[in-house]
């Protein structure tokens, strides 16, 4: 199966090259980095190292960047697309684990969850409260349990890629898109992964925004639960 790794990149000059090398060592998959108009020298790094990348002419935010990756994957006829963060949080060695259920056709969307085996970097207590709230909200609306709705370490098959190509939130997109997948009768499965602390870059969720973030994502999950792709 043709598999591609989608790596959104916004100001990841310190980590992106080593991440790419690690991926080349540990996996046979194609890679496309989506450079979301980085203001540092990420683009030069990508070009120098010969890493394949999409260069967004405008900054779209994480959602728009990942969506560009999904569109690319659909356009080039890939069977599986895997989202991997550009900051080194996700261990390339575990990509095989999240791809496996899709290769065996057991799932349409696989989420790598930190909270199944509770190993590795567990995020801060505050964030876990938020993540548990999303778990509760998604459970109320869909009856399914997703322990790590905010995880950006996910694998999608062609059905899911096509859905995300059409509907994808601009910022903080993961919880919403998980809800969307559930409600559109895609088989969503979680597998345990171990995440590392970010090696560089910044979280897309910054200091003063938690309230806005929680409200926006909760509302997004609610809206997504009502969308049916035609």
């Amino acid at each position: 199966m043709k598999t591609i790794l989608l790596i959104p990149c916004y100001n990841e000059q310190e980590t992106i090259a080593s991440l790419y090398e690690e991926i080349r060592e540990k996996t046979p998959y194609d890679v496309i980095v989506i450079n979301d108009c980085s203001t540092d020298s990420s683009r030069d790094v990508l070009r120098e190292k010969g890493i394949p990348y999409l260069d967004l002419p405008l900054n779209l935010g994480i959602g728009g960047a990942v969506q560009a990756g999904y569109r690319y994957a659909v356009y080039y006829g890939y069977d599986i697309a895997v989202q991997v963060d550009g900051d080194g949080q996700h261990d390339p060695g575990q990509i095989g684990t999240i791809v496996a259920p899709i290769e065996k056709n057991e799932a349409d969307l696989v989420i790598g969850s930190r909270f199944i085996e509770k190993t590795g970097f567990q995020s801060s207590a505050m964030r876990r409260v938020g993540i548990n709230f999303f778990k509760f909200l998604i459970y109320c609306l869909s009856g399914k349990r997703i322990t790590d709705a905010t995880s950006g370490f996910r694998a999608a098959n062609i059905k899911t890629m096509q859905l995300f190509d059409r509907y994808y939130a601009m910022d903080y997109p993961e919880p919403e898109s998980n809800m969307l997948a559930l409600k559109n009768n895609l088989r969503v499965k979680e597998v345990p992964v171990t995440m590392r602390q970010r090696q560089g870059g910044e979280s897309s969720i910054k200091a003063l925004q938690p309230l806005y973030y929680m409200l926006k994502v909760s509302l997004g999950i609610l809206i997504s639960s009502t969308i049916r792709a035609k």
Partner: protein
Amino acid sequence: MLIQLRVTMLIIIVALFIFFIVMLRRQKLDLKYCLVWIFALLGITVLCIFPGLLDSLSVLLGIDVPVNTLFLVGIAFLACICISLTIVVSRLSARLRKLTQNIAILEFEAGKKEKAGGSNKNSNIIGSNEAGAEKTPEAIKDV
């Protein structure tokens, strides 16, 4: 309605009219989005010239002071404009997002063809567009 108020309003209306016409002539405003303002101005002008209309409307709505009716209608109108602008902005940003993503993909494709040793830069870009329209990813991949 006092004569002072009516005169003030008429002056503002005329000023706005001139502003809109000038902006339209300079092509800084789209007639499509401007039309609603022009109709609103016409409406207010009619009310200014025939205040009796405002009085009857106030009686109809149960508002004691007619000028309050004017404010109510004005605020409702502004809210409508704001909502429609929010819709327009959302649509624009969705389109802009799609455009940005597609440009990135096409640019990538063009760059790849160039590297693969195409003879003419322009024909490469046109070629990639055609390939995109036909959706033949395999063919693109093999170049």
